[in-house]
């Protein structure tokens, strides 16, 4: 397990002494805190994005498509699979997509994301073992089978930041997604937001202000060297952490980071973000593309290491049509494609681009039945798929499979990925989460399973 080195106990003292000396001689008595603020935000060396498609997605439209010429309505009694691609009413081509050079065949909804086949691995035939929304979602968020509907263990994002202890100011953001912490310090808790405005508020200066001169005096008073009393309270770490946090607040506020998340503000950077993600000038920005832009901003500016996001909803289409589900899925995948484009075009300070330093897990709580119900929708189905992208995993490959009769979860040799109907095992969300953790060299023992090693890059 990776552990950060403990902060030397004399660090604060040394910094104070150094700042005092340098402050007096070089910086004209600049207060210690101001001196400490010189450190700039730096993106985490390894980032994670957990993308949740809410409601249960149709895998025939996404990562586990079927050939409509083989799985025809005439054979449905035999196959129990009806792709339904001919039911699209929006002009979408009624075929799966296989880009040139790709080893992965995608459903029609994956749309623009298919071009990133060289950065992804698809896992098919994931057995969710539940058809309840909350259970399935919490199972994938934690990698542990919930007890009833109650989540067990910590979110994977919490595990990541709990183990890696990043120095970014808000290590984990959970946007419209649940987050759990059952064994890590509070610093591993996700900042939970339900709207982009919540995040903007967190990063914005207080709306209640004193006179500017008094504000300056107040800041200077807070920047004075600590007293004996304060030092005694700092000795246990709480005071130190609090002062560091206050420095970070000042740094974040000074950096005007709220403006960077408030895409309605007109400036060169935001104009570029709006143009890239196709966002309207005046909002709203809680669309799938707006959320993708928020994820990219949080990672690129070094605000967060992990972002968990509910990218798109409206997928629980028991009564919907194929076209409704297709449209909602495609909105999510197109937004995800933009996010990948953005991360791939942005150089990371440690070398390469951000996609080289970011692992993305895309999941939903379960899939939808391969047969269409009497109300033209699809119900809940156990056999799911998920997508792994970016750092630490192999690319352009498929692991696992679903059966050609009723899309049952296929049994595979977990060590090789080969079909093994006799001695194989089901792929569970536990394996996926173990793989995500192992992809960054983190301790995955909480999942109590081995990762899917054929998927790991090293």
């Amino acid at each position: 397990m990776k552990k950060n080195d403990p902060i030397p106990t004399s660090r604060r003292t040394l910094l104070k002494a150094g700042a005092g000396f340098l402050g007096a001689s070089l910086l004209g008595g600049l207060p210690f805190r101001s001196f400490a603020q010189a450190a700039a935000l730096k993106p985490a060396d390894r980032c994670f994005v957990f993308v949740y498609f809410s409601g249960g997605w149709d895998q025939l439209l996404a990562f586990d498509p079927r050939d409509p010429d083989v799985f025809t309505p005439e054979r449905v009694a035999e196959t129990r699979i009806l792709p339904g691609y001919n039911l699209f009413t929006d002009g979408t081509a009624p075929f799966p997509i296989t880009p040139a050079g790709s080893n992965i065949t995608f459903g029609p909804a994956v749309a623009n994301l298919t071009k990133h086949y060289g950065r992804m691995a698809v896992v098919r035939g994931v057995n969710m073992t539940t058809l309840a929304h909350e259970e399935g979602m919490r199972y994938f968020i934690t990698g542990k089978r919930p007890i009833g509907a109650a989540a067990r263990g910590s979110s994977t994002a919490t595990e990541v930041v709990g183990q890696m202890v990043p120095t970014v100011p808000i290590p984990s953001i959970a946007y419209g997604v649940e987050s759990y912490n059952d064994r890590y310090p509070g610093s591993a808790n996700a900042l939970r937001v339900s709207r982009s405005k919540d995040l903007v508020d967190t990063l914005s200066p207080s709306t209640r202000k004193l006179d500017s001169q008094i504000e300056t005096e107040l800041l200077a008073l807070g920047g004075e060297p600590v007293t004996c009393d304060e030092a005694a309270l700092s000795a246990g770490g709480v005071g130190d952490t609090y002062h560091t946090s206050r420095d970070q607040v000042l740094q974040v506020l000074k950096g005007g980071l709220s403006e960077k998340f408030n895409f309605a503000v007109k400036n060169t950077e935001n104009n570029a973000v709006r143009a890239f993600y196709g966002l309207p000038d005046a909002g709203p920005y809680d669309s799938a593309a707006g959320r993708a832009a928020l994820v990219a901003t949080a990672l690129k500016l070094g605000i967060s290491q992990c972002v968990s996001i509910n990218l798109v909803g409206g997928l629980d289409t028991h009564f919907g049509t194929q076209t409704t589900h297709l449209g909602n899925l495609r909105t999510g995948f197109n937004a995800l494609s933009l996010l990948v484009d953005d991360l791939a075009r942005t150089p990371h300070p440690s070398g390469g681009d951000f996609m080289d330093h970011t692992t993305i897990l895309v999941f939903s709580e379960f899939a939808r039945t391969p047969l269409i119900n009497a109300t033209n929708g699809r119900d809940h189905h156990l056999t799911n798929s998920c997508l792994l992208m970016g750092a630490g995993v192999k690319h352009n490959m498929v692991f696992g499979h679903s059966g050609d009769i009723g899309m049952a979860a296929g049994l595979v040799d977990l060590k090789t990925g080969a079909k093994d109907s006799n001695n194989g095992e089901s792929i569970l969300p536990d394996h996926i989460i173990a793989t995500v953790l192992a992809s960054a060299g983190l301790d995955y023992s909480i999942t109590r399973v081995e990762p899917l090693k054929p998927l790991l890059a090293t």
Partner: protein
Amino acid sequence: MRRLLLFALLALGAAGCGEKTPAAPPPVDGQLEPVGNPHGDMGTPLPDPELQDGRVGRSPRRLTVTQLARSIEVAVGRPWAGLEGGLATTLGRADYALVNQESTEPNLVFAKFLEDGAREVCMAQAAAEKSQASPEARVLSRTIPGPLTDLRKLSDAQVRELLVYLSTRFWGSPLQGDELTRWATFFTKAAARAEAITNGRDQALAAVCIALMTDSRFLTY
């Protein structure tokens, strides 16, 4: 013969035991008789502070959200309305559904919203005190006699008295020495500036209140 021998041994034993018990000196006038610790020997002394980063006893802890809410209400004289209005979970309160453990980590989010909260309650309280004539009804200006008038006219002793009162109220320990001087200078400058602003007399008191409330001594125990 046996009885004699047994008697002799018992007599010797009794004499031996008596020798081991030192006779307590009679108490002198005005001295209380020493009372033994009913819990017995307490054993292990406190650890050497040098061995635990200068700490004596347990490590300081951050207030929980409930403690913080009550502390603010008691120290400032009014509750932080926004705290229960949605910020409690953000600041660390466990809901025992999604978060099982109360977080007392003074992280960035806590620091940010505590600053916001300090401004909310301190500015409101300071503004309210402008119209309160009786010092007993006021909190942030309790030691200032009479109605709240020009704060620049306070003597240095009065400023120090106010700051000592407020620091004791907020932290449980008074400002003293150089630190008191520094805070007094801060208050004097803030008061001078506040009087120059139209209707801004309360700002000096609010500024001191914010500084006290966002100090680590307020949120640790």
